[in-house]
């Protein structure tokens, strides 16, 4: 039995020192109408909508990406049958790298294809993927890096055309996150961040003109949070990314901030282990976003509701005694609900081992549904509002986030901080600090580095491990070769030539890339154009 020793200092997971109790004294400087307000009103601390979950529950979204396109489609259908109403697309690594299956780098690892997501490499693959899935009833997160999203968008629109769905009926989110693409999960030879800004700008302008229910940008704090950074670094890095994007669009002189602010007010955050810190972070993020755009750009407050997709942090889950992760994920889902998120992605208990098995994925969905329908927390908006601790902590997280944002500004802004490697170095510091705390046992993981069942001996419960389709690479390769034979290669060449020309001009790339998609160009061919036309970059921590 562990003797309970009073720790000398109590802190949040990110390192904010905590007192033993909070009182009105700690929140006396808060002005309710200015700093907290009502849900659905600036600064949106209490939530983006006045009725919050009374009107609409948060969406339950599961990642689905592995195997062949057919496998991915079947998992999407399974999730939708269980009540999930959205699709979050993950693609194979070769797809992110914008390489065709027969590229030597991919061929050398053909058996790896399909581990992270299906290789969705041409419009033909998209057609297979969405066969039997009506786009106008499916909220689609067309996840992609800044360099890849124009392509994803083009394919998605081409499917909409085929299904006869008008663009004003399409609902979805892009991602276009620089933090993910260039810091958290980079790959070799990416389009340089400063050039990728152009692509994001084009998507935003296109979206404003044609896609009223598409949210082109969703900053992702989740992936960098997995690197072990603090709650405030997570949101500050997202907002720094936002500033770079906003400045790019404004510099074109065609749109005012209010024309596109709403479409870029979406964020994807983690729900980590510290219950109250995460709730404070969600509230602080909404308030900070509103203030940032009002103060820096004079944006109209009503356009500044920050909508959140929250993903429970995978790295907070243990390899040992995996069923314990169900308990961990459950309270993380509770945190995101009490924090006012609009959609959840609950990690599966087998997170540390593999892609989710069907059983594990179902439990993740059910966890969300149990909180939605059984816990009672959905009746009242921002139920923790007014808590001395929560309001104090919301202030504290926000303050530290502003400080970090200022540091990024001092580096010459987000893109400069990225391209110089400064951001990577800052994050590495946090990563190592976090890691040391786990290694030393200061940060405890029950059953893993603390209170292990047997000293040193692992007794792992049998769980049904997900096994991806081992033939995914072969299938994709065969499809690719068939596609190249069957398509009109003259049309392909024309489309790629036109795309190249458009890239070198200042015109919007979306129409040209859509033409290329419809001609059945492949992602590798688009990637080749990008790598020819734009400067290429490698992240300092590419490993």
């Amino acid at each position, binding site marked *: 039995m562990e003797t309970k020793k009073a720790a000398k200092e109590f802190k949040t997971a990110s390192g904010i020192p905590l007192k033993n109790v909070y009182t009105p004294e700690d929140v006396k400087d808060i002005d309710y109408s200015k700093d907290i307000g009502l849900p659905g009103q600036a600064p949106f601390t209490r939530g983006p909508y006045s009725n919050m979950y009374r009107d609409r529950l948060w969406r339950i979204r599961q990642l689905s990406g592995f195997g062949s396109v057919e496998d991915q489609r079947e998992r999407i259908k399974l999730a939708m049958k269980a009540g999930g109403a959205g699709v979050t697309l993950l693609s194979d*690594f*070769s797809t*992110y*790298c914008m*390489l065709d299956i027969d590229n030597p*780098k*991919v061929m*050398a*690892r053909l*058996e*790896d294809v399909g*581990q*992270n997501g299906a290789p969705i490499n041409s419009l033909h693959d998209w057609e297979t993927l969405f066969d039997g899935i009506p786009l106008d009833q499916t909220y689609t997160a067309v996840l992609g890096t800044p360099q890849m999203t124009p392509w994803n968008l083009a394919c998605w629109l081409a499917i909409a055309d085929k299904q006869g769905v008008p663009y004003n009926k399409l609902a979805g989110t892009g991602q276009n996150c620089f933090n993910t693409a260039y810091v*958290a*999960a*980079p*790959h*070799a030879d990416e389009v340089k961040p400063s050039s990728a800004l152009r692509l994001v700008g084009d998507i935003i302008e296109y979206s404003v003109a044609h896609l009223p229910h598409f949210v082109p940008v969703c900053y992702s704090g989740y992936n960098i949070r*997995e*690197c*072990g950074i603090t709650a405030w670094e997570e949101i500050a890095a997202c907002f720094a990314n936002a500033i770079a994007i906003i400045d790019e669009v404004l510099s074109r002189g065609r749109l005012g901030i209010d024309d596109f602010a709403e479409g870029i007010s979406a964020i994807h955050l983690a729900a980590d282990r510290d219950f109250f810190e995460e709730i404070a972070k969600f509230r602080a993020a909404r308030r900070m976003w509103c203030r940032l755009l009002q103060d820096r750009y004079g944006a109209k407050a009503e356009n500044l509701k920050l909508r959140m997709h929250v993903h429970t942090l995978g*790295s907070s889950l*243990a*390899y*040992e005694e995996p069923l314990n992760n169900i308990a961990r994920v459950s309270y993380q889902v509770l945190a995101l609900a009490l924090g006012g998120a609009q959609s959840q992605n609950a990690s599966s208990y*087998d997170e*540390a*081992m*593999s892609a989710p098995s069907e059983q594990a994925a179902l439990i993740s969905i059910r966890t969300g549904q149990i909180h939605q329908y059984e816990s009672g927390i959905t009746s009242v908006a921002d139920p923790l509002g007014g808590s001395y601790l929560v309001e104090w902590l919301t202030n504290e997280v926000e303050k530290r986030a502003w400080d970090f944002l200022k540091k990024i500004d001092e580096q010459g802004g987000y893109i400069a901080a990225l391209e110089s490697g400064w951001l990577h170095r800052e994050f*590495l510091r946090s*990563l*190592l600090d976090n*890691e040391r705390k786990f*290694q030393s046992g200061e940060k405890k*993981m029950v059953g*893993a*580095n603390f209170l292990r069942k047997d000293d040193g001996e*692992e007794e*792992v419960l049998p769980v049904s*491990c997900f096994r991806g389709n*081992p033939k995914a690479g072969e299938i994709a390769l065969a499809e690719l070769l068939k596609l190249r034979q069957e398509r009109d290669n003259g049309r392909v060449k024309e489309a790629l030539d036109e795309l190249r020309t458009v890239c070198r001009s200042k015109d919007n790339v979306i129409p040209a890339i859509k033409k290329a998609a419809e001609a059945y160009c492949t992602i590798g061919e688009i990637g080749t154009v990008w790598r020819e036309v734009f400067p290429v970059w490698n*992240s300092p*921590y*590419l*490993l």
Partner: protein
Amino acid sequence: MAKKDKPIKVLMAKTGLDGHWRGPMTVSMALRDAGMEVVYGRQLTPREIAETAIQEDVDVIGLNVCGRYETIAELLRILKERQADDKLVVAGGTIPPPDVKALKEMGVAGVFPPGSSLERIVQFIRENAGRSKTKASSAK
């Protein structure tokens, strides 16, 4: 023990095309703190890993695994072919429990799934680097 008076030299490489670097980075830092020399291999094919390991004359190959193991089998095969299979091969990453055993049978000396203690990894490498290996049983 490694070669006399020289620090243990480790090549850290990824077999996959994915961009996850937290694991390799954390382990690399721990190895460096422990006085070992670390060479970053980045994302390499099995043949590239083998050739780099030989060129750099490393004692240990540390692999970040994300996906299948055919690339690892391929690497081990090439190392054997090039008579470089005295190099210690260790692997880490999201490896389900049943696969830990399978990898060891393949010839991976140490397998370190998520949560593995850095101290244990360092110790394992210290104790096993430089030893000539008896060939693993299953060479299918």
